[in-house]
């Protein structure tokens, strides 16, 4: 404790004395001096450490400039853990990041090891307001209540409360138009029907040009274990209408899978398959992610978003995950020219549940 009494290194006057201006009184608690306080060698070492960090920081800034000028931005090097990485990126990041970090680290080290280490007392002022102030505030409030007549005119009070309760309603009503339908269209009907109808050809989904220059899919083109992401042929009529195109894809997208007919344990309707080819909606019944993650040996269809799993060999029932409804199945048949077509629209709405679905 001898060092502590040496006034020359303390930031404050000794306990119980009147503190100097700008200083705080030293707390009257036990104090354990640091190594740097007692050992001048340690203090010298800490001094060198801090200065070393600042010098290294300067050095890194120089290296940054050198790296910026000399390293070609397209150079790729291999670094363990990071893998293939742009040499310029790595060098610039490490040098500049290191330079900034070392300034901070040096400052912290300086403060911790060399700046005065002493526990001081800092007085906190009273948190409550003076009694006069609180009384005046209360009186002002009472005067306002009296002058406005809020208590005296009950009709005004009640109508004001009514007006405030009603004014958010337009904000909620306007939400209706977030649904961009033709005027007067019923959202429930739109969500409950798709473009599939009896005789609608099924075509492979190839993106923007889907349905062009393809007559359809023949059943023999899908091998057992095969998978085809497909759309109705009519999607090509919506090619140039971006909104209608995306909306139709969002509802009408299906997958065709083929399994050995003996492996089909149940379907959503009698004879809805065609020789083991099953058509299911591609839109998850949970929150509507497109699913084509089909395991052809287990017949499981797994949604990559939340791991809902459907068994396509068993009516598309949910066997795992958050989905609450089975995957809607599309009844299919073959038309006179031998191409796969839908036999009707889906019998239940596809995609996630909605309010009026029941």
């Amino acid at each position, binding site marked *: 404790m001898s060092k502590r009494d040496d006034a020359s290194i303390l930031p404050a006057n000794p306990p119980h004395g009147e503190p100097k201006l700008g200083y705080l009184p030293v707390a009257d608690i036990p104090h354990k001096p*640091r*190594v*740097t306080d007692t050992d001048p060698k340690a203090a010298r070492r800490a001094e060198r450490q801090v200065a070393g960090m600042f010098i290294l920081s300067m050095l890194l800034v120089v290296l940054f400039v050198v790296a910026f000028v000399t390293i070609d931005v*397209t150079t*790729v090097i291999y*670094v*363990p*853990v*990071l*893998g*293939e*990485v*742009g040499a310029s*990126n*790595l060098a610039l990041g490490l040098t500049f990041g290191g330079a900034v970090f070392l300034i901070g680290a040096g400052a*912290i080290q300086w403060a*911790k*090891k060399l700046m005065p*280490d002493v526990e001081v007392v800092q007085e906190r002022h009273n948190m409550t307001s003076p009694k006069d102030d609180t009384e005046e505030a209360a009186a002002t409030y009472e005067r306002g209540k009296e002058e406005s007549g809020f208590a005296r005119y009950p009709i005004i009070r009640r109508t004001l409360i009514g007006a405030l309760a009603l004014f958010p309603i337009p904000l909620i009503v306007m939400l209706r138009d977030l649904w961009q339908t033709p005027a007067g269209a019923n959202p429930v009907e739109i969500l409950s029907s798709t473009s599939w109808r009896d005789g609608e050809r099924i075509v*492979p*989904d*190839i*993106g*923007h040009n889907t349905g062009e220059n393809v007559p359809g*899919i*023949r059943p023999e*083109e*899908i*091998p057992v*274990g*095969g*998978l*085809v*992401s497909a759309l109705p042929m009519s999607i090509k009529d919506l090619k140039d209408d971006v909104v209608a195109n995306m909306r139709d894809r969002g509802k009408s997208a299906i997958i065709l*899978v083929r399994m050995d007919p003996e492996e089909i344990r149940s379907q959503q309707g009698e004879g809805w398959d065609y020789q083991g080819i099953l058509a299911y909606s591609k839109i998850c019944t949970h929150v509507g992610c*497109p*699913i*084509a*993650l*089909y*395991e*052809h*040996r*287990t017949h*499981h269809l*797994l949604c*990559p978003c939340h791991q809902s*799993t459907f068994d396509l060999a068993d009516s598309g029932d949910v066997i*795992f995950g958050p989905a609450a409804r089975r995957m809607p199945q599309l009844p299919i048949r073959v038309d006179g020219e031998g191409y796969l077509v839908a036999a009707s629209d889906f019998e239940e709405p596809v995609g996630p549940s909605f309010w009026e679905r029941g």
Partner: protein
Amino acid sequence: MKFLSHRRRKPWVATALLAMALLVVGGGYAAVSSTAPAEAAMGSQTQVEEGKRLFLEGCSSCHGLEAQGSMNGPSLIGVGAASVHFQVATGRMPMSAPGAQAPAKEVIYTEDEIAAMSAWVASLAPGPAIPTAEQLDFADADVAEGGVLFRINCAQCHQAAGGGGALTDGKYAPSLMNATPQEIYEAMLTGPQNMPIFSDETLPVAEKQQILAYIDALQQAPSPGGLSLGRLGPVVEGLFMWTAVFAALIAAAVWIGIKAR
């Protein structure tokens, strides 16, 4: 133990432990081994016989003496040469243990041996042949169209950047970053393990070539920042930031707060 507990209290130990843990996590992303493609070859009689001999030796315990399948492995009648080549040339077959997932590993057969086995299996019944060099030539294919087709048909399992992803019950779709065009083509054609088949009728050769071109572009794409974390995207990157970077920030805050000795 006193020696250890004494060291544990030192402020730098926490930082060092943390840095070590971070290194272990980062190092966990190891690359998978690559494999070399083999030339397609159609079987002469001696090659078919050699293939049968190799099959009886290495494959028949699971797939049956006549490749008719057994409790441990599916029938190989009609799977075609492409299937044999894909499975054996990537080291997936023979499997080291029965199971739904057959991981790619070191290839134990030579190219000639694989060609012989392919020829024998192809001689059993017609099936997808090993793709020709012409079918695999994607030099003129449209990469952007390939991206569209990849996202429609492949991305659900293999992830939009080809990094691979999880399936049910511990199975997984492998990363495509080290797959050769021939392997990718054969996989689409034959549907290995739980992958469905994308036949040449519903996904024509030209479209398969576009997909090959897209995967090739993904494989060539540089990663200027490094540590791609399986290219799984913002969720994984965010998680990494929240755990690793926040841990480093907390370590720094702890260091600032510790009283110097």
